[in-house]
């Protein structure tokens, strides 16, 4: 198999110190390959968001290493990580995280423009991405003029614009009804089918079932894995 797009090796994350110390992750290793969607499930507080922010270079592990597209995020430094976030990593948050003063197209083109793309090509790419998520015709609307499902589609468009290789989504269906949530999953799945690697955090089995593999975390540890890849089904141990 080729190298994974995302690899976490023995990643731990400790928040706070002394009595307030929280072990959010305790030695997590996982990989996501091109064309694959991996779901992460677990109860709240189990470390899912910590895992995803570290995978996306938004936070750094206390120990262990992360690589995206073969590039070590620790070695990349702050500017290298920022660059990867603008070009290779698409991140979808539960609460959309859109900029209210920008139109749909501007929200989507922002990462490209920040990366130095000209305004024109960036806007063109944004239009293509908006079309892909079914929002053609909504380019000049502002987020607060749109429904929750439409806002999340903008966020997906922003995460996929410019052919990103890694899509990370943290409960992207959180506030949405079942049908709208399924539509969002369809979009993420389509991107993975087109060659991106995806990691989806969810506590809903129905959305996890869109993934090729489902990884269960609990108290900062991977405790189980279910999935289609025959070699990995039932292959992991259970926790101590």
């Amino acid at each position: 198999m080729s190298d994974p797009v995302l690899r976490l090796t023995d990643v731990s994350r400790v928040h706070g110190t002394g009595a307030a110390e929280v072990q959010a992750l305790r030695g997590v290793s996982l990989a996501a390959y091109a064309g694959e969607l991996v779901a992460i499930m677990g109860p709240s507080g189990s470390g899912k968001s910590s895992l995803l922010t570290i995978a996306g270079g938004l936070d750094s592990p206390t120990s262990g290493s992360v690589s995206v597209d073969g590039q070590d995020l620790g070695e990349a430094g702050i500017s290298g990580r920022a660059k990867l976030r603008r070009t290779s990593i698409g991140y979808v948050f539960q609460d959309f995280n859109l900029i209210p003063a920008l139109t749909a197209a501007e929200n989507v083109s922002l990462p490209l423009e920040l990366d130095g793309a000209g305004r024109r090509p960036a806007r063109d790419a944004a239009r293509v991405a908006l079309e892909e998520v079914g929002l053609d015709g909504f380019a000049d609307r502002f987020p607060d003029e749109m429904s929750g499902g439409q806002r999340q589609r903008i966020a997906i468009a922003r995460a996929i614009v410019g052919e990103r290789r890694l899509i990370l989504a943290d409960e992207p269906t959180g506030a949405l009804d079942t049908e709208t949530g399924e539509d969002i999953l369809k979009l993420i799945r389509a991107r993975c089918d087109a060659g991106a690697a995806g990691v989806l955090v969810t506590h809903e089995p129905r959305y996890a079932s869109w993934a090729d593999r489902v990884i269960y975390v609990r108290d900062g540890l991977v405790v189980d894995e279910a999935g289609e890849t025959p070699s990995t089904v039932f292959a992991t141990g259970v926790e101590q």
Partner: protein
Amino acid sequence: MSVKHALLALLEKPRYGYELRAEFEQRTGASWPLNVGQVYTTLSRLERDGLVEAGGTDAEGRSLYQLTEAGRVEVKGWFDSPVERTQPQRDELAIKLAVAVAVPSVDVGKVVQQQRNATMQALQGYRRQARSGAGDDLAGGLVLDRLVFAAEAEIRWLDHCESRLRRAAATSTAPEPAEPTEPTDGGTR
């Protein structure tokens, strides 16, 4: 569950046996295959009970069945009342977990995980069916949704069992059989 009422309802329009079976399977997305013997047995019982009657033959000479007035009332009564939930069917999974908790040598956590993986794979299977167009027609889609919701509920319940087992293990002083003991490799791949 008896398919009696479903077949009866589909006789709103006179049909012959094979046609009735095909209609049932197509409507329900082939999730519950019927053999044609079952269909004819049911039809003859319905005839005996006065709910259907022979309705002549079609152009190819096949005997048609049609609803009687009593049959029509029966169908209306079926749609007008909820499906009974009084006595849940004997649920092997619930029984297995209940017994697993009581039998000290069983690793309940493992039973839960194994079931959850199997159910997740079933859910992934329904997903594949849906993506290949199995749920595109309305009736078939509703049936597929039903299977998805049921599998989802089972996984949620298993998650819940796991949490309860862990809480029970944490509060009891004696070592609890529910607590898995195998070492972990801590990761995947």
